[in-house]
Every structure is written in structure tokens, then in C-alpha cells.
């Protein structure tokens, strides 16, 4: 497909941001009048590079847009990307490298493991990290750090919002089961979804929901036959497919011959975005709901959204930007707004400005809670189905759920407690 984001585009983006990398040699010798340097920590090589390139694209676009409009406090922004290889040790090395070069404002990070590794080092290094993808609940709960912020959603609110969506749209589907990967995020996603089912079905439909034991598949499995056979014996009507990314592609590929997509009346997925449809083409499960960090189609007509989408398509030729593009873009906007508000770039100033900050982004206004540094933001879901076009699939619908309806009360330093799912 000619619309995919190729390595050449990626290299182009890197060249564009190369100046940032080179400028690091003149460490720390910058006056207040020089550019404001923002460090992007993202997987720019390895298996997760396919997502890192989206973060880099979104961040690059935001920096270019702000600079064209005159910068922040009369200073230009400069992007300094660093590769975390989606590995905790490389992530800490990247963050220390940035701090050592005098970059105290950082953002990005895809993997929660990397975020959890960097979080405890931030205070000692007098740096700020704005997360734009890592979704582990602990980051704004047990492992809360005063120097850590998250402008994207987290597992709990996304999965509960998904549960709210199915309770409102499919009141008749009251029996659910799941196939999940045996990972911490797999467990935490499913527990959060069940928590939402148990709250929203009684609240919205006055019906009790019945949840059957989930099937736990190996993470990174290549053979799902046993799991699928088990799944086909379940009497539930709704399926939560917690298996995500490349695993979901493998599983759905094998599921076609079992008629899995015909057996279940509703299938939902926590966050594979376009991956399943793009890989499955004409075999895309009809009616599949997928969680998105940001779905551009839901905000058509919003200036920030449209300009970001157009800039992304122009830069890469890809017509389907993943949500990571929008979230990395929003992280740069958060810094721009905070620096403007603070009147400077010192760590303490920026932290104060980010706390309680309301700023506009491609998916609407977000507010960063002062207490736990978690943003209250929209949650996006997209429904897919097969069609007769060349690509073989189409978006058949989308939903936006307000973050305030799904988020838990802030309890920084405390583990997240489920209100309804008492296991």
C-alpha cells in the first residue's frame, strides 16, 4: 500500500530533527535567548519503532507549527529525540543523556516499563517527563512522582469508557468473556473493563452483567488454536479481545476458520487502533470496536485536528495516523502552554504551570489534574468493518466518551482500587 509510513519518511523526519541531536555537543552553554529544547524519549529502533515513528512525526509537526507561529516566549522550540528501544535501561540512559545535555523538559515514552524506570530518577535529576502513551495505572498511583505528568489516557479510564460504550449501545448483550495476554497490562485492562461493565450495565440498562472466566493466552504466542477452541465453547455474546497489536493480528488470522467473528455479537479491543483492520483487510471482523489514543475522524472541523492531520499526510503520505501522533503532538502543546504560563523553562516553574493546566489539543481540551498529574481527556473508539474497497476495510463508526465520566478520583501514592469489580 502506497499510503504506509515508510523508513524513508522516518529517515526524513530524523534529518529534520537532526539539528537537535547535533546541537547537544555544545552542552549547557545556552543563554535564555536560545531555543527551548524538548527531549523526546521514544522507541526509534527495534520492534516498537513502528510506534516510535508516529511519536516522532507528531512531535516534529507540533514543533514546526509552533515555530512557524513565532515560538514560545519569543524563543523557538527545538526537538531532541532519543531512542529508548522500548527497554527500561535504554530509557533511563536516554533520559540521563538528555539531562546531562541540559534538556530538563522531556516527553513521549511508549512502554510503561520504560516510564516506570525513568519516574524515580526525575526528582534527583531535576527534570520533568510528560507521558504521551504509557498507560500503566501505577504511574499516577503507587509510583506517582511529582515530576511526572500524563496527558494521555490510562488503562483504567480507557477500558471503563469502553465498558460504558458497550453498556449504552448494546444493552441486550449482558454476557461477556475475554481472551487476554498473560501480561500485567492484559490483567489490568481486563479488570478495569469488568469494573466498568459492573457499574454501567446496572446504571444504564438496569440489568446485571454476567462475566465468564477469561481465557489467558501466552504473550507473543504464534498458535491460538487451543485458546480459540475454548473460546468457541463459551456461551457469552460479547467478546473482549485483550490480545493486542501483532498478537491480535495472529489471533484473528487463525480465528477466521473457526467463525469466531460470527459467533460473538460484539467484539471489542482495548487499543490496537488501525493495526487489526490494516492487517486483516477484507477479513476484518465486522463491527469490531477498537480503542484509540486519538482518532482524527472524530474531530473533523477542529482547527488543531485538521492541521495536524493535513501536515501528517503531507509529511508521510500515510492517510491513517495512529493515535500516538496526536498524543505526542499534544505533549508538545502542553509544554508550550505551560512555559507560556510560567514565563520560563525552569523545572519547578514548569511543574507548577502544568498542574491544573487546561490546554487545547487535536482531541479537544484537556485538563491535567493537580493532585495526581493525570490528564482528563476524551476517550476515542472506532468501529471497523470489511468493505469492497481496495484496502478491504472501512471505519463504520466512532464514539467519543468524556474522560470525566470514566476517570477515578485522584489517589497519588496509593494503588488503584476498583469500586465495582471486587475479585
Amino acid at each position, binding site marked *: 500500500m502506497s499510503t504506509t509510513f515508510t523508513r524513508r519518511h522516518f529517515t526524513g523526519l530524523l534529518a529534520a530533527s537532526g539539528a537537535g541531536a547535533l546541537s547537544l555537543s555544545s552542552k549547557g552553554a545556552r543563554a535564555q535567548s536560545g531555543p527551548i529544547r524538548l527531549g523526546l524519549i521514544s522507541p526509534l529502533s527495534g520492534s516498537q519503532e513502528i510506534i516510535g515513528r508516529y511519536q516522532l512525526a507528531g512531535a516534529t509537526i507540533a514543533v514546526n507549527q509552533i515555530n512557524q507561529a513565532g515560538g514560545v516566549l519569543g524563543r523557538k522550540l527545538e526537538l531532541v529525540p532519543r531512542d529508548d528501544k522500548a527497554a*527500561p*535501561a535504554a530509557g*533511563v540512559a536516554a533520559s*540521563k543523556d538528555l539531562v546531562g545535555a541540559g534538556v530538563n523538559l522531556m516527553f513521549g515514552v511508549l512502554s510503561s516499563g520504560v516510564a516506570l524506570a525513568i519516574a524515580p530518577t526525575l526528582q534527583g535529576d531535576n527534570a520533568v517527563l510528560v507521558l504521551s502513551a504509557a498507560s*500503566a495505572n501505577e504511574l499516577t498511583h503507587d509510583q506517582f512522582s511529582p515530576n511526572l505528568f500524563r496527558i494521555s489516557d490510562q488503562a483504567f479510564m480507557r477500558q471503563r469508557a469502553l465498558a460504558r460504550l458497550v453498556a449504552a449501545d448494546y444493552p441486550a448483550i449482558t454476557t461477556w468473556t475475554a481472551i487476554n495476554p498473560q501480561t500485567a497490562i492484559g490483567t489490568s485492562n481486563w479488570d478495569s473493563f469488568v469494573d466498568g461493565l459492573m457499574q454501567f450495565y446496572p446504571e444504564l440498562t438496569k440489568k446485571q452483567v454476567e462475566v465468564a472466566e477469561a481465557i489467558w493466552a501466552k504473550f507473543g504466542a504464534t498458535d491460538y488454536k487451543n485458546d480459540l477452541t475454548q473460546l468457541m465453547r463459551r456461551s457469552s455474546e460479547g467478546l473482549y479481545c485483550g490480545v493486542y497489536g501483532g498478537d491480535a493480528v495472529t489471533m484473528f488470522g487463525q480465528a477466521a476458520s473457526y467463525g469466531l467473528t460470527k459467533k460473538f455479537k460484539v467484539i471489542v479491543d482495548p487499543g490496537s487502533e488501525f493495526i487489526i483492520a490494516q492487517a486483516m483487510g477484507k477479513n476484518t471482523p465486522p463491527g469490531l470496536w477498537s480503542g484509540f489514543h486519538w482518532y482524527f475522524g472524530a474531530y473533523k472541523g477542529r482547527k488543531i485536528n485538521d492541521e495536524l492531520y493535513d501536515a501528517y499526510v503531507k509529511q508521510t503520505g500515510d492517510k491513517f495516523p495512529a493515535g500516538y501522533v496526536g498524543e505526542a503532538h499534544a505533549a508538545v502543546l502542553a509544554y508550550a502552554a505551560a512555559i507560556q504560563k510560567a514565563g520560563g523553562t525552569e523545572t519547578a516553574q514548569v511543574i507548577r504551570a502544568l498542574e491544573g493546566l487546561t490546554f487545547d489539543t487535536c482531541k479537544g481540551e484537556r485538563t491535567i489534574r493537580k493532585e495526581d498529574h493525570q490528564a482528563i481527556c476524551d476517550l476515542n473508539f472506532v468501529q471497523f468493518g470489511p468493505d469492497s474497497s481496495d484496502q478491504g476495510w472501512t471505519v463504520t463508526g466512532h464514539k467519543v466518551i468524556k474522560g470525566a465520566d470514566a476517570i477515578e478520583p485522584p489517589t497519588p501514592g496509593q494503588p488503584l482500587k476498583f469500586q465495582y469489580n471486587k475479585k
Partner: protein
Amino acid sequence: MEPSPAQASPLMRFGLAMLCMAAFLALPGIADKGIVFLAGTVALQMVFGLTWNLMFGQTGLVSFGHASFFAVGGYAYAYAARALPQVHPLLTFAGAGLLCAAIAALVGLIALRRSQGVYFAILTLALSQIVYLVISSSAALGREDGFTGIRRPKLPLGWTTIDLAAGNAYYYFIVVVSALLAGIVWWVTHSRVGRVFRAIQQDPERAAFLGIPVQRYRLMSYAIASGVAGVTGALFGPWLQILTPEVAHWTASARPILYTLLGGVHFFWGPAVGALGFAVLEYGTRTLHGISEIVTGAILLAVVLAAPGGILGAVARLRQRITGKERRP
């Protein structure tokens, strides 16, 4: 290895090692935080590399799963430090190493009897995959998300207590302990036991004929190497403050092999030099996103092809050419 005319004298090598340690200790004063963090990691990797070569270079054992002991040591320390915070941290570090040595002795007792060469290599690879899977599916160890919040301990020394969480204290602790561990490996290699090891490496059959219990000594080298590797893993946990299953991944096991090839398999300090060289390469190419692995790989390949004896081998040949002396066969 016997000192050859082409190699530096023992005194000079000791001086170089001390100079290297002094450079590590002086680093926080002259370099930024990014480099200090890398240096701490490299110090541990240098010792980790030395332990691998204690098996390979000394007794001819090839392990493809050495990282499993690094991981077991790391997770064991992290778990024990959380469960038993009243125990002296030095005891916990030592305990993690002893646990690894005990596991290696147990595994080696069976594995070394049945297999050698490539069979042993595959067995260790399988063992490391088991360790990897157990860690990544164990809820108590944090599964794929990792064991988080590993604290840098307070070190009571009787007359005073050093807070290793403060400033660069833990970095200095890593450098000093790494030097001690490297000293232990050096001592083993250069002791009578080390000479027996080398006899086995050169010709196990002849060694057995001379009355050396080959299996017992191999087991000993496996246990010592694994125990010391476990301590380096234990030290790494509080350094990174998180441990994820990737520390047990086979790619982590490949690292000491690369270090040894790069630095020079026939030299005691080869793996340490290799680890340092590898880190310099990685740091130098860190902004070449996407192609840094290709550049690193190409340079490694070039070094291995151009200098089969590794960096130290090349240095020795250079010295030989300058001094014009023949190296003893």
C-alpha cells in the same frame, strides 16, 4: 595466560587496571549524568563479561544463557531487599550471589555430566529461556511490566551509615564492588585453581589423564562465574531501580560473548575492554536512530575480522611489531 614479551608486565597491567578504576571514580566530577549512568552500567557489564570468560577462556565451557544468573541475582536481591529490609544490604547482595552459585552447581551437576560443547551451550540457552518465562509470568516479580521501585539501600558500616540513594553514592559503590569482584575473578584465574582451569581448557583429556577431576573443576568455574554474575545482577537492580524480564533475554546472554570477542578471548581483561569498547560504540552511535545497530554491528564485524584476537590481541601485535620480539607460542 603466561605473560609474553609482547604483553605488558604484570606490574604494568595492575597499574593500568588501577588507572582504569581511578578514571571511573573521577568520572562524576568531569562528565554529565548521562555518561555517569552509562559508566555504572558498563562497570557491571565489564565484570559480567569477565565471569563469562572465566568459564569459556579458562575451562572451555560455552554458555549461551549467562544472563539468567544476572537476572536471578537481580530479582533475588530486589525481592529479598523488599521482604527482609532489616538484613544488612551487603548480606543480601552476597546472598543473591550464593543463590546463583548454588543453582549453577545444581544445574551443572546434571548438565555437565551429560553434555559438553554445543550441547551444554544449548542446555544453558534452554535454562535461560525458562528463567525468562518464569519471570515474565510471575505476578510477584511484576511480569512483563517489571519489578518496580527497587530502592538504593542505606549501608550501615558500624561507625557510620552511608545512604547509597544520595547523590552519586551508589555509583561509587558499584565501581568499588565491581573492582572487588573483578579482583576475585582475577585471583581465581591466577591461583592454582586457575592453572588447573587452563590445563582443562587446553586439553581436557590430558588433564584427566594427569589426575585432574575435570568435571569437578568445570563445575567450580561454572558456579563461581554464575555466583559473581549474580552479584552484578543484584547491583544492577537498585542502579536502574526497576528490573524487567529483558535482563534474562537471550540477547542479554549474547552480550558477554560479544564483549569477549571484541576485547580478546585470550586475555584476562579482554571482556572488560570489550564491554568498554561496546559501550563507547553504542554511545557514539546513539543519535543515529534506526541505523545505530547496523553501524555498531558493522564495526564489530570489522574488528573481529581484522583482529581475530580482539582489541587486546591487536594491541599485543602492535607492541610486538614495535619491540620486534617474537611472542612465545
